[in-house]
């Protein structure tokens, strides 16, 4: 069983490493991850929201829905733990 798992891990690792051949060079300012939307956020976030921290401005204002659902997720995790593990004190 462990040999089979090791073989599967090595094959997956080799496929992933072969896939990194197509990536752009590390640190390129013109790669597709940094050209469509993030220059708009970097240039316009401070004058539209007066918040110098761009990460907080994007998290709280431009992507406020994601933060709301993340708060709901952590609330649901608390309720799930409470419902799985609740029991009365044994006297």
């Amino acid at each position, binding site marked *: 069983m462990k040999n089979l798992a090791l073989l599967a891990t*090595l094959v997956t*690792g080799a496929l992933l490493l072969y896939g*990194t051949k197509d990536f752009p060079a590390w*640190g390129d*300012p013109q790669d597709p991850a*940094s050209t469509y939307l993030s*220059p708009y956020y970097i240039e316009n976030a*401070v004058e539209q929201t007066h918040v110098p921290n761009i990460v907080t401005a994007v998290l709280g204002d431009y992507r406020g829905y994601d933060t709301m659902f993340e708060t709901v997720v952590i609330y649901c995790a608390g309720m799930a733990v409470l419902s799985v593990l609740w029991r009365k004190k044994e006297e």
Partner: protein
Amino acid sequence: MEMIVDEIVAKYNYWIYVVLMMIGFYAMIGKRNLMKKLIGMNIFQTSIILFFVSTGVKKGGGIPIVDKYQALAGNVDAASIVNPLPHVLMLTAIVVGVSVTGVALAVLQRIYREYGTLEEDEILEKLQR
């Protein structure tokens, strides 16, 4: 041979994160104890978070906190500041990872209370009887 060495040196961060990913993946499928599988899942999540944040780095760029008066005057150079979008998405991913770990630990406690063991083959045996 020269081309392979050049490729490895140019993108060495992706290679390191794939190695970390495979360590977590092997722990998830190759170990028999349920707690070790959970730790493998945590290693996998950590490597994915690091991988995403590293795709947004720019050469010689600074952190995404700008000077307020310089930005209101209008001279912010978008090529000298690191891409802020992966940082934002990975904050959510970290919190989701913590929630999943918490619920998984609670379920593991119930399994231990019911079956008395955390080894996967002993639990399968007890289920089939």
